[in-house]
């Protein structure tokens, strides 16, 4: 039992520690593509360290929501990390607390409170940012719902540890619905974590920012928590894409848990994430941020992929029963 708890903890620690590295790598690679040197891949750790030591300014008129939100944003990805296979292929004690729906709701909770906190300060940019991010989430919602339908139809389960075994089986791994679902999820992840073509994470222009304008009033320690939480959210979403929906390889099998195999699983996950980061760098270096009113088209396309996946999986009778 004690070792199971340790394994559970090590999953959380991996999420906590590795998360700031991914945006650093993406930033650095993007700069290299543009023939610049770019910041070190460790820049986001330095930022967090700096922010954690600085003082915090809290707007006078803000309520408790403003102060609670950073902790929620920080805690929700960690809670989801307990539900999904980050390192182990077998469910850990807390894995049955919730299924994929629960994970989605927990992540949505953090996002919801971020929007509330942005409105709480009654700053113009905060209101604009939260209304825009609500629009993006609203448009992503149909895709996510149909995506869950599709995954459930294929795998006949909603528990991530069961789903990944079913989807990576020989009949489904390269089947059309599976590939379409993965593509749809990647598009939704890009939209939900505020990346190009929906939002430009490197932009400092207030009128065009979506994700960043929601945290514009935060400073010091609270800002560090918000940013770290955002990075962990991205990490958790990528983990869901890789270890639940597409390629759950390199996970620690049942009964083989040791510090060495755990580290190996973490390395495997990291290597897979590097591939996805490469894809993201290609997308962000070739595509410009889309106009806000064209975002429905982007998310419409992801909805299309998810729906096609569901229709095809339904009619070819894919899934475990085949």
């Amino acid at each position, binding site marked *: 039992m004690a070792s199971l708890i340790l394994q559970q903890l090590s999953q959380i620690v991996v999420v906590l520690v590795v998360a700031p590295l991914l945006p650093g790598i993406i930033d650095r690679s993007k700069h290299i593509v543009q023939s610049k040197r770019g910041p070190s891949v460790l820049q986001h750790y330095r930022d967090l360290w700096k922010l954690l030591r600085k003082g915090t300014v809290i707007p006078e008129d803000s309520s408790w929501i403003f102060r609670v939100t950073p902790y929620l944003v920080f805690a929700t990805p960690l809670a989801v990390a307990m539900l999904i296979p980050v390192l182990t292929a077998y469910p850990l004690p807390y894995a049955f607390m919730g299924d994929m729906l629960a994970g989605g709701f927990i992540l949505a909770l953090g996002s919801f409170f971020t929007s509330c906190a942005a409105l709480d300060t009654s700053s113009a940019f905060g209101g604009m940012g939260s209304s825009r991010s609500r629009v993006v989430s609203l448009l992503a919602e149909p895709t996510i719902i149909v995506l869950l339908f599709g995954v459930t139809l294929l795998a006949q389960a909603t528990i991530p540890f069961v789903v990944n075994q079913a989807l990576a089986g020989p009949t489904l791994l*390269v*089947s*059309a619905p599976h*590939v*379409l679902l993965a593509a749809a999820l990647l598009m939704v992840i890009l939209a939900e974590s505020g990346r190009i073509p929906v939002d430009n994470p490197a932009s400092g222009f207030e009128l065009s920012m979506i994700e960043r304008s929601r945290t514009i009033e935060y400073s010091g320690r609270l800002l560090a928590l918000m940013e770290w939480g955002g990075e962990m959210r991205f990490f958790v979403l990528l983990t869901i894409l890789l270890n639940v929906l597409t390629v759950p390889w390199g996970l620690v099998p049942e009964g083989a848990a040791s510090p060495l195999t755990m580290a190996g699983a973490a390395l495997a996950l990291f290597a897979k994430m590097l591939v996805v980061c490469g894809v993201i760098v290609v997308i962000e270096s070739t595509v410009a941020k889309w106009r806000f009113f064209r975002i*429905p*088209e982007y998310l*419409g*396309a992801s909805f*299309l*992929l998810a*729906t*096609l996946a569901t*229709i*095809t999986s339904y*009619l*070819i009778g894919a899934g475990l029963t085949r």
Partner: protein
Amino acid sequence: MTENVLELLGALLLLATFRTVATRRLDGYIEAFVQQSVVLAAIAAVVGWATGTADLYVVAALTLVVKAGVIPVILRRVAAELPTERGVGTLIGPPASIVLSLLLMGLAFFATPSVAVSGTLLNEPPLAISVGIVLIGLLLISTRRHAVAQLVGLLTMENGLFSGAIAIAYGLPLIVEFGILFDILVAVVVVGLLVTLIGREIASTDTSELTRLKG
């Protein structure tokens, strides 16, 4: 394994078809058609390999040359000669078109299982995809006002029929296939000429302006 590969190619074919509906630019239509034809050629080659039909390799090569080579060149040339105009495009915008074609696709998927087809290597999905592509081509023809876009709609329908023939009967006899390819090539040349003439005559390629019938 072959089944999986064909399924994937079928999905790619669908995506390329949806791209014709989702695009706003004239180039987009042509690019999407090229993609569609390349995927179609790949499907023909894979089915040929799986069934040991040598004819299908020839068909695949011909498809590549004619549909992904010659026709796009002609279409681009026609498009380059036309007066550039903005706003001639669609009766309904891309998002609505995508939703409509999704509905058509669903219709095709639910309607085709009732059509009993026997003796096929791969049953319903490829046939359903083909019927769906024909319907989407029809949608393109009826909702796009630009003459070149309508032409792409026609070609899309033909691609759907072609993939349907492969799905049901491993392709048509080679001589028929030749005939069809030659036919659409001539059709594209004729329509291209016609479009260029229309463009010169009324300085627009908006087919909704062609209202008077002259003998």
